[in-house]
């Protein structure tokens, strides 16, 4: 007993907090093209390197290299570039609108646009995506009307959610976009259930799910992986590792000891860790996982390694918990800049065209903004108060009818 080691409690801490120098050199990314693209029938154990390394296609020169190069034609790439730029312009405007008091809340996905936009273009929209609140790029890439997104953000009279959800909790079944809950991780196992249903029916559609690095700690994450593995569900389980869960660094989700992708290996699920700021890599990994799912080979775990350049939401100030210069020093760069560089390197794009497109997307967002604001910003117009009592059940039971009458609406 006397020789026993005195135990000590470990509480993890990030490398840098505000005021500390930012040193990302331990994260120096491996070269693009280094990892092979396994056959889709691969055993989980043979994706060890993919789960711990980093799948990258775009190199520093902007060239697409290696086995994961999805060899997309320039048109698809320009569409992806446009979707990412439009998403960023949309985020900028809506963040500003919140600051101007025109809505209660907003969440940007700045720096992580490639994760949602590439997947949106890699998958048909009759597959079902179970997104988090940071996959707005998926709707935008699929040309969901910006005005409708804004109508929801303003909870105005034309809000598709009928004023019932706080901003950015979209629903769009016709676009393969499941209703966003707002509770973290809950939708990860639901996506597995949807995929099981598709398999049960002998359908060809698959599901795709998103979760943040922080919420992989929730039990729902582990139940999703268990069910996906047990029933070989045709689902893509995406973990968006953007380094920060509000003020908690990814170490609080256990990232210090392993990668998030490597979690999948323990469940027998082939797992990939992907440069999330590389549009081509995200596209290729999504395609590979979709092929596996459609071939009845089951689920794939994909960790998208990226950085949340924006605050968590309009409600937090990231300079209070992380060094302000982290975003610009992020070693994987910016997804828009990297795809732009690639297109220019291919001779399919130019600085002038980029500038023009930038202006065009800002204008498109502005025009949608005007249209939506004419219907009303938060408080200026809203759906009928009666809507409060609708859709609780398919048919309104007597007690809700009476409560509606009590309110006098």
């Amino acid at each position, binding site marked *: 007993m006397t020789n026993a080691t005195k135990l000590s409690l470990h509480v993890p801490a990030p490398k840098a907090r505000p005021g500390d120098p930012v040193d990302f050199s331990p994260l120096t990314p491996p070269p693009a093209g280094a990892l092979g693209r396994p056959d889709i029938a691969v055993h989980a154990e043979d994706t060890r390197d993919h789960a711990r390394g980093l799948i990258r296609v775009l190199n520093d020169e902007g060239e697409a290299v290696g086995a994961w190069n999805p060899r997309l034609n320039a048109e698809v790439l320009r569409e992806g570039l446009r979707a990412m730029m439009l998403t960023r312009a949309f985020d900028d405007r809506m963040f500003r609108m919140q600051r101007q008091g025109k809505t209660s809340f907003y969440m940007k996905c700045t720096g992580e646009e490639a994760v949602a936009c590439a997947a949106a273009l890699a998958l048909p929209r009759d597959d079902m995506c179970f997104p988090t609140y940071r996959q707005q790029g998926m709707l935008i890439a699929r040309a969901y009307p910006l005005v409708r997104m804004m109508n929801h953000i303003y909870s105005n009279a034309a809000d598709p959610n009928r004023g019932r959800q706080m901003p950015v909790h979209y629903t769009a079944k016709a676009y393969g976009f499941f209703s966003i809950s707002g509770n973290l991780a*809950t939708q990860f196992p*639901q996506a*597995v*259930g949807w995929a099981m*249903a598709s398999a049960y029916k002998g359908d060809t559609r698959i599901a795709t799910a998103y979760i943040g690095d922080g919420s992989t700690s929730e039990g729902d994450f582990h139940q*999703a992986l*268990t069910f996906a593995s047990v029933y070989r569900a045709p689902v893509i389980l995406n973990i968006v590792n953007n380094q920060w869960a509000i003020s908690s660094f990814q170490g609080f989700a256990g990232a210090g000891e392993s990668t998030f992708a490597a979690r999948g290996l323990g469940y027998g699920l082939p797992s990939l860790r992907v440069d999330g700021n590389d549009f081509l890599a995200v596209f290729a990994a999504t395609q590979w996982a979709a092929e596996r799912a459609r071939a009845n080979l089951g689920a794939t775990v994909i960790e998208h390694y990226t950085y949340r350049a924006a605050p968590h939401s309009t409600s937090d100030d990231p300079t209070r918990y992380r060094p302000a210069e982290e975003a610009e020093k992020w070693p994987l760069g910016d997804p828009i800049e990297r795809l732009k560089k690639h297109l220019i390197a291919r001779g399919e794009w130019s600085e002038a065209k980029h500038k023009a497109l930038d202006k065009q997307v800002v204008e498109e967002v502005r025009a949608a903004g005007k249209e939506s604001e004419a219907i009303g910003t938060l408080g200026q117009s809203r759906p009928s108060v009666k809507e409060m009592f609708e859709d609780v059940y398919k048919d309104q*039971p*007597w007690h809700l009818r009476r409560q509606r009458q009590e309110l006098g609406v």
Partner: protein
Amino acid sequence: MVQALNSALDVMLARDPDVLIFGEDVGYFGGVFRVTDGLQKKHGLTRCFDAPIAEGGIVAAAIGMGAYGLRPVVEIQFADYIYPAYDQLVSEAARLRYRSAGDFFAPLTVRTPYGGGIFGGQTHSQSPEALFTHVAGLKTVVPSNPHDAKGLLIAAIEDDDPVMFFEPKRLYNGPFDGWHDKPVEPWSKHPASDVPEGHYVVPLGKAAIARAGADVTILAYGTMVHVALAAAAHAEVDAEVIDLRTLVPLDLESIVASVEKTGRCVIVHEATRTSGFGAELAALVQEHCFYALEAPIARVAGWDTPYPHAFEWEYFPGPKRVADALRAVMAA
């Protein structure tokens, strides 16, 4: 009652290819209470199958299946095990239609055996129905006999809203009336054991009069319907026993009609008293029948303790306690 529930599931599996069943031990083995016995063999491996021991995952998967367009029926082996699924039921299943303005909905049925009287201690005896009646968007059903169990379960499966279906496990094999030291008659001697073959529905939201009477109304559901009947006989009171069958949506009309007639009301449930569903019932009776009441409303319920093993019959609100309440209300 087990056979009636099994028959409901059998009928629905045969009728609707979108109905499927899963849960812990429900597949090959047929469930620990045998409710899914033979269904996998008869309808196939993908129609009735086993699930990981993960209640949250079971309900979450069912929500995803429901959103796809199926009508999943899941079993939570004991209501005492349902809490890991509570977030999925409360935050997800109950609100999907509302939050998406009807874009998505999940018509799932959650079957779960509840209640005491089986020496199950605090982890196999609970009655957590009030935790679900409190949730906007869920329906809550509790059958009390084989005929209703089958018809209500079919109605629940066909319902487009998520339904919590609480099965009184003490009634699985007979109409237990709370006299624990007397043998329980088999269901076959009970009129409600006459269960039609094939498809029929007992509509949700409609109560039944288990016994017509003039002097006092007893509001009960599940096992306590039979306890209430035994208590009325024991106290020699002409009680009207209302079997609520569905707690949400509640058949207030039947309750009001009865209490206005009798002027007295005793509410019984196994669940703990504080914030139990009886509190809601008492409030409603007071709001709607105040001027008809000739005595204070009485509640007989489980004590506000965990369900104890060795003190089963002191805990269980049996016919003696209910009879005492009836006498007190009649004397008031």
